[in-house]
């Protein structure tokens, strides 16, 4: 089920009551949370719970196998790890990349003159498979790397994998971040409950009002057209998508953090004002933090990170970002998206090494200018992320470069107004909060202003009447 649905409202209200029943033991409450998490997942497509169970069970046994063989040869432990990676990546490869692999194989065969037609691939992608697979993999990898012991309780382990706030779209949690929270009884205090509810309202506002209501149709219109797109429309459509995807995904993470807080648990931050980033390494410290740190710790560093030669560091960087791109979806456009980010990071690293400049510029104007350049270049990558194919991406990029002379307007004036107002507000807010946390800002604001803004957001969410549109990252 999705957070922005009436079903979730009922589900969460019932769960909150059950979780706070005073006569239930802590174990009983955890069992309720686990069952509720399975219901949360099954409410989308019941049979796919089996896949979740399979992934959970496989890594439970493999982690124990790795731990039991810790005094034996590295090859034994590695073979356990290979099984885990093969099973988990196998699930993703089959469900997510099966059709992509077939199509590319077909194209490759045709290039060699072999006519082979891929069979029709009518497989539904299990929602959130890339997220929970990375969660279970991080558990096995941590045990393999000696960073943590296997979890002793099956219940705690299953709850760690399945805990519904992070299950389908993150934040991608590590065992050490969440599992210890299951050891002792947790009850949300009144303050954490109300703060959690406030975060849920904020997340819903981002998703329902800004992403779905405010920006989605402008981005859709620009990326759906088959006609040349002019300079203004191409930029507006791309800016609209940049705002949409941020509000959609950051909104999801904020709701996830809020729901966990209402139940007494803490999930890590996933976004820190990414559109105020100065440079691309800064961007990736602020955008989808749980994925970028996952890729860093389990891919970039094991590949050698920056410990080898200079050339090897660049290769590692590019490889990590290319695979990060592919993680998002089975399409070459996602690979290009990741590749562009890898290229940006490599160029930034090279520039910093050549010039010896380590931190941000001293003057505020220079910082702002660099942040805007970063944002503009990030927008170029979003074109590949959003476009259905390279033809569509080329059309929009040509428009952004001013190469589509005489193109007819795509967006009606009211859409232009919406995009300009909302995207400006998003970027300005992120710039203002660049070095501040939400908690700091709220503490400094008058209490009545916090109340007024929260009520306004709640009102806007209600009268926007979201249609329960799925979050973009569910498909990844």
């Amino acid at each position: 089920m999705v957070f922005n649905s009436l079903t979730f409202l009922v589900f969460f209200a019932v769960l909150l009551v059950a979780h706070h029943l005073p006569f239930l033991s802590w174990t009983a409450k955890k069992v309720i949370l686990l069952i509720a998490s399975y219901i949360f997942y099954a409410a989308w497509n019941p049979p796919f719970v089996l896949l979740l169970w399979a992934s959970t069970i496989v890594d439970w046994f493999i982690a124990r196998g790795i731990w039991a063989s810790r005094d034996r040869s590295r090859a034994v432990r590695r073979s356990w790890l290979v099984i885990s990676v093969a099973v988990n990546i196998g699930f993703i490869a089959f469900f997510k990349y099966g059709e992509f692999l077939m199509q590319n194989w077909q194209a490759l065969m045709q290039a060699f003159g072999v006519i082979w037609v891929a069979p029709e691939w009518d497989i539904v992608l299990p929602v959130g498979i890339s997220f929970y697979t990375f969660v279970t993999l991080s558990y096995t990898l941590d045990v393999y790397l000696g960073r943590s012991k296997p979890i002793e309780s099956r219940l705690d382990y299953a709850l760690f994998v399945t805990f519904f706030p992070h299950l389908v779209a993150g934040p991608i949690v590590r065992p050490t971040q969440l599992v210890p929270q299951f050891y002792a009884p947790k009850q949300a205090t009144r303050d954490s409950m109300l703060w959690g509810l406030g975060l849920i309202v904020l997340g819903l506002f981002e998703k329902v009002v800004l992403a779905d209501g405010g920006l989605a149709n402008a981005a859709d219109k620009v990326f759906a057209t088959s006609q040349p797109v002019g300079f203004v429309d191409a930029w507006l459509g791309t800016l609209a998508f940049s705002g949409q995807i941020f509000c959609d995904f950051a909104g999801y993470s904020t709701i996830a953090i809020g729901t966990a807080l209402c139940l007494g648990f803490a999930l890590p931050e996933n976004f820190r004002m990414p559109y105020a980033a100065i440079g691309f390494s800064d961007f990736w410290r602020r955008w989808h933090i749980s994925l970028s740190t996952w890729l860093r710790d389990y891919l970039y560093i094991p590949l050698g990170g920056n410990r080898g030669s200079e050339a090897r560091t660049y290769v590692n960087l590019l490889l990590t970002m290319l695979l990060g791109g592919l993680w998002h979806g089975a399409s070459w456009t996602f690979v290009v998206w990741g590749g562009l980010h890898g290229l940006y990071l490599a160029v930034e690293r090279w520039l910093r090494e050549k010039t010896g400049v380590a931190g941000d510029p001293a003057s505020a104007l220079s910082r702002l200018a660099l942040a805007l350049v970063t944002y503009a270049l990030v927008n170029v990558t979003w074109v590949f992320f959003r476009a259905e194919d390279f033809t569509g991406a080329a059309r929009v990029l040509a428009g952004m470069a001013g190469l589509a002379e005489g193109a007819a307007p795509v967006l009606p004036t009211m859409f232009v107004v919406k995009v300009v107002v909302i995207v400006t507000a998003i970027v300005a807010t992120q710039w203002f909060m660049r070095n501040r946390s939400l908690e700091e800002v709220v503490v400094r604001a008058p209490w009545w202003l916090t109340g007024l803004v929260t009520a306004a957001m709640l009102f806007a969410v209600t009268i926007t009447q979201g249609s329960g549109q799925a979050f973009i990252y569910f498909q990844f």
Partner: protein
Amino acid sequence: MKHYHEQDDVTVREIPRLRYAAIGWMVLALFLAAMTSWELRMRAVGLMAGDIDDSPVAWAIERKRLETGEHDGVVIVGSSRILFDTDLDVWQEMTGRLPVQLALPGTSPRPYLRSIANDTQFDGLVICDVAPEGFFSPFVGALPQFVGMEKSWRDRSPSEHFGHQVGLRLERVFAFMESEYSLFRLIERIKLANDRVGQDGPYYDVWKLSVSYPHRQYFLWRRVEQPGFLRDHARAAWGPFGDERPPLTEGMIAASIADVAASIATIRARGGEVAFVRPPSAGLFLEREKRNAPRAKTWDRLLRETGSFGIYFEDYAEMQGLEVPEWSHLSRDSAARFTRAYVDVLLREGYVRLRTPPEAEPAG
């Protein structure tokens, strides 16, 4: 245990020190006051509690009724014409059965007829609406939320079904829950003085036309029935009537009829039947339809080549003088009259037999 990364620490979140009780009460009071004002405003606009939004889930629920295999069942496919112009209560009162209403606004019935033919064992009567410009066009249309429904209706998740039930209960209480009057629909429909050349905004789209009830019973919205801005806007939204649209080509018409004929043959082979209905249109809309899709080249040919029975509104005295306020759909009172008239014809001609006692549940 070694700790290599900051991710290895247990997550702890800061809970800011705020005046939570005061903020909480303030949010509650402001939200209730704002919602009460909004609800009252929406009722003043003419929205009503109990007018439920149609949705893919509502459609899928009706579609599932086809699987029950009633050998004398009735299913309606088509565009908004037959959807608005059929009063299901009248159908039930006259025949004892509640038809399955599968018509969708802006949609050609052809893919749905094909789906009934090929994907079901339905052997009852299919009522197929003919809105000529859509029916014979290669574009099958459909509102965005209904695109591909003939294939994807089984994909509705348990969560969507549950949410639909909760939504129904809320919509029976609150009038503001109307997607056509959601915040951004209202914002986008503000008319600006300087619209971009060649890009008509949502102001020029079709606005709220209908009210709908359980079992997908649609009626024209009372405010559109009455003379005034909304009715004029609805008429204008049907398109620039002055321009000369290219008429349907011979090839388009032939392909449409061939498509329908194949579906009819499959349905007939298992004992079912298809009857066509051409509901009324009026004003410039009717003039355009006559110009672009002349009866002799479309309707008459369709019946002849498929060997089917059809009801054309102009052929029956009891279907004259009906109100078509915005030129495309009947008023609620006229919808009841039209339904009575066309069901009467179907009964007379033996396409529908009385079922007594009535078994189906009321429409709403």
